């Protein structure tokens, strides 16, 4: 039920015959996940918050940088260095105090994605890399969730509503992620108005879906060139192998036959950069320094770990970390031999190697 204050706030929407009080209540009861709080995610979140979508779950692992400010309009200069999801949450709560804003300061991967998406009505892919886009597709396909897709290259945009009403998904257009160099906005450049417009279109598509209106994007890849104004709608047929490709990628996370006993700090960084879901466990005693401040590192001292095996991920690689890589190697042997936890591996050189290689854990 909408409160009297909400009736007044949303009156311009409610007075539209197609929406009314029932449509506004639908929005209030909806949960939307927004993955990526950058150029597309900021305007999308702002519109959905203003329009009264009851729960917004914001996913982004990054912090605000000065180069973000021209187009990522939820952030202020004083937010530089702060987690994007925290700054966005504050701005959106100030815009509309009637909402629930949830924040997840993690990369979205096939490992953590299902838990993030499971109870949501809709997912918005406002990410900035193909690894995330395939992960979003595969998680949404595995859970049968619709998702609004938006992506940019300089002045051009691609949009769709994928996986809606048994419709096509991203892999029906781009079957496999190919190993080529990507051109995100930080490499290719971007004019502020383009992501702002496209993020707004994505929010519009989300509202269309949540209100139960017919989508004009499902089954199509819409392409707009904001330089010359041209546009195309390309029909996408559902491909029979797109589902199996998505499921195979989801299940691929569980295959650890090639996981070595030890990995290097470079390898760990590469996995993280690739968006691979990795569980990092610091088994040092609590007094040992320097501490790893990353939210992605779980601290379980060595002697406590055998009692807390239920905290270990079943499918993701588990990277065991100690000060110099000796205890972690012992622990990896122990986990593999004694408890058949084959997805455990030891970080060679431990925290000392991380510090030496100046790997940022902030």
């Amino acid at each position, binding site marked *: 039920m909408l409160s009297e204050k909400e009736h007044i706030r949303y009156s311009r929407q409610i007075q539209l015959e197609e929406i009314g009080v029932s449509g506004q209540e639908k929005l209030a009861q909806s949960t939307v996940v927004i993955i990526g709080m950058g150029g597309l995610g900021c305007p999308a979140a702002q519109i959905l918050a203003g329009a009264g979508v009851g729960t917004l779950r914001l996913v982004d692992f990054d912090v605000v940088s000065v180069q973000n400010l021209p187009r990522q309009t939820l952030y202020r200069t004083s937010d530089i260095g702060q987690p994007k999801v925290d700054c966005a949450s504050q701005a959106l709560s100030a815009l509309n105090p009637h909402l629930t804003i949830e924040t997840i300061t993690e990369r979205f991967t096939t490992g953590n994605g299902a838990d993030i998406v499971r109870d949501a009505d809709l997912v918005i892919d406002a990410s900035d890399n193909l690894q995330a*886009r395939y992960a979003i597709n595969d998680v949404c396909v595995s859970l049968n969730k619709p998702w609004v897709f938006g992506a940019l290259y300089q002045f051009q945009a691609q949009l769709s509503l994928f996986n809606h009403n048994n419709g096509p998904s991203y892999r029906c257009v781009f079957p496999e992620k190919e190993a080529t160099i990507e051109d995100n*906005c930080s490499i290719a450049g971007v004019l502020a108005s383009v992501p702002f417009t496209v993020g707004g279109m994505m929010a519009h598509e989300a509202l269309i879906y949540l209100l139960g209106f017919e989508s004009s994007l499902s089954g199509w890849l819409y*392409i707009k060139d904001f330089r010359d104004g041209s546009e*195309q709608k390309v029909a996408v047929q559902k491909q029979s192998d797109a589902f199996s490709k998505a499921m195979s990628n989801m299940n691929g996370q569980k295959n650890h036959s090639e996981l070595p006993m030890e990995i290097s700090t470079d390898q760990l960084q590469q996995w993280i950069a690739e968006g691979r879901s990795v569980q990092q466990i610091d088994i040092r005693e609590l007094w040992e320094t320097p501490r790893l401040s990353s939210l992605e590192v779980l601290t379980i001292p060595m002697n406590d770990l055998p009692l807390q095996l239920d905290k270990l991920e079943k499918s993701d690689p588990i990277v065991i970390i100690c000060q110099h890589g000796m205890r972690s190697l012992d622990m990896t042997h122990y986990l593999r031999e004694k408890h058949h936890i084959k997805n455990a591996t030891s970080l060679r050189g431990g925290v000392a190697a991380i510090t030496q290689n100046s790997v940022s854990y902030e």
Partner: protein
Amino acid sequence: MKIHVTYFGKLADVTGTKREEFELDEGRLVSDLLHEIESTYPMEQAPYAVSVNHRIVESSHSLVSNSEVALLPPFSGG
């Protein structure tokens, strides 16, 4: 037969043009057109999907005169 090709995203940078025309024999397939394009430009720099007359197709799709072909790389930015 005349085939109109539009290059999107990075492919316009690779080919140096957004749009061009190809002259192919009747009955040629998308794969024949792609072979010609790939022998002219370093297309391996970006993967792409192909649409013909506004429909995503396989490379075995037959072209007809005045087909509108678009080469669509996946965009990653956001």
